[in-house]
């Protein structure tokens, strides 16, 4: 598999085309809007958190296939998770993405999202994969 194929695995392209959770959320308890200043890509991520648990998640926005797939995979991953657990996933995700291909995502914890492993070698694209996660971070924080 070439590097490019590693970056754009079929699963990524599929999620980018048919993303999960790309819906406005009724009565969110918190929300965050993030922009990638270089390309203007945006994501608005909404959470409904009840008793420390993410009861519902929804996002809107536009961007490259990496950021769209990342948002889609994020939505499947953290839906119904306790906030504390989502926070720990976020930290692991950030560490892996910044590792320049040195650290891989744990398949047991990240499932399909390990398809994003290819991104961390592309320093300029890490921001794309992180965009929805940064929105999640801000939404969880308040």
């Amino acid at each position, binding site marked *: 598999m070439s590097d490019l194929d590693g970056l*754009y695995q079929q699963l990524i392209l599929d999620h980018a085309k048919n993303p999960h959770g790309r819906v406005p959320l009724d009565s969110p308890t918190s929300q965050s809007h993030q922009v990638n200043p270089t*390309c*203007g*890509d*945006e994501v608005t991520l909404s959470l409904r958190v009840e008793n420390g648990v993410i009861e519902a998640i929804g996002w809107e926005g536009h961007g*490259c296939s*990496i950021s769209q797939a990342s948002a889609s995979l994020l939505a499947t991953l953290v839906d119904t998770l306790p906030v504390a657990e989502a926070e720990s996933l976020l930290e692991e995700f950030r560490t892996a993405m910044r590792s320049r291909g040195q650290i891989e995502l744990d398949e047991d914890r990240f499932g399909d999202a390990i398809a994003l492993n290819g991104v961390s070698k592309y320093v300029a694209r890490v921001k794309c994969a992180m965009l929805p996660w940064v929105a999640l971070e801000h939404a969880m924080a308040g």
Partner: protein
Amino acid sequence: MQPTLTEADVAMIRADFPILSTEVNGRPLVYLDSGATSQKPLSVLDTERDFYLSRNSAVHRGAHTLAALATEEFEEAREKVARFVGASADEIVWTSNATEGVNLVAYALSNLPAGSELALVPGDEIVVTELEHHANLIPWQQLAQRTGATLRFIPVDDEGALDLERAPITDRTRVVAFSHVSNVLGVVNPVAELVARAHAVGALVMLDACQSAPHLPLDLHALDVDFAVLSGHKMLAPTGIGVLYGRNRLLNELPPFLTGGSMITTVTMESASFLPAPQRFEAGTQRVSQAIALAAAVDYLTGIGMERVAEHGSRMSRQLIDGLSAIDGVRVLGARGAQRVGLASFAVEGIHAHDVGQFLDDRGIAVRVGHHCAQPLHRRLGLTSTTRASGSVYTTEAEIDFFLEAVADSRAFFGVAS
């Protein structure tokens, strides 16, 4: 001299740019991001290094031999750059880049004492265009905020052409700021008409020459603009050096922007008096080696001949526009038939610009993706980001062909080819 750059000419030029013979991702580099920053010929690098190896010292401050030599070379650089843009040396102010040049004028205008002829007041208007680079937009928004003036703009139509009929240039207009060549569309704007309309109402004209200076013969006196800015790094010179042109009389009417050493006559603890232009605007130790290197870049371009550079650019532009337009699902930005330099932005239906760029990068092709610091224009054209290919004197026809083929192939890779 032949009126055009032949394949052999370009091959000889490329030998002066060793980076063009390197590989990226195991593929020969195809550098099509010259609109962001150009590569530099050896003569420019050598000039700067040679300065440091034999003459480096502070200019306009020292009386010793090296300082006198450095000062002379620095001022000769100013004269050379002045000739290149059709100005005189006392109209050339060194800046870090074009951005600083626009900011300098905007701040100097708001530093004018109240009541000055050139000072802006509420009710006055500043006119820009909807296709400006942020560098020629935000400083004017900020000036409007500081002075209470109003910012208005010349809209573009659905193709991206300036709609001069709706240009809000009126008796209230005090400044008209626009780019010579759009860094997104590559299209040459109607300078003469805009200057005439601005001057008819007594407004000052600021020309953003960032994307014209590297590609077209430039004669600022003939264009009759009041101010102009450019960046060295886009025209074969190092980073960290730019030029503000201002009519000498105007520069001398403006108060300083940055203050400090080398721009004063007498300083007390209470106040300072200032030198005439251009020194008035050059506070602190200047970008000496970079200015000298910019003069070397100008020599290099002049050696090729700006007429030939322009012809080469217009041929690249045709190849880019024709080639891109021939690919299914590709939308090329900018009005058809306009005069252009060798730069084109486009959108591939169904593929985000970042993904197009990544695909090209895998083949060693460097292009720019994003909004190219022109968000309002992109928004107006219904896009968030596009891909931009931009060439220079060292760009070959074969490179552009290779690029066009890769753009076509990206559609299959991302599953959008029919």
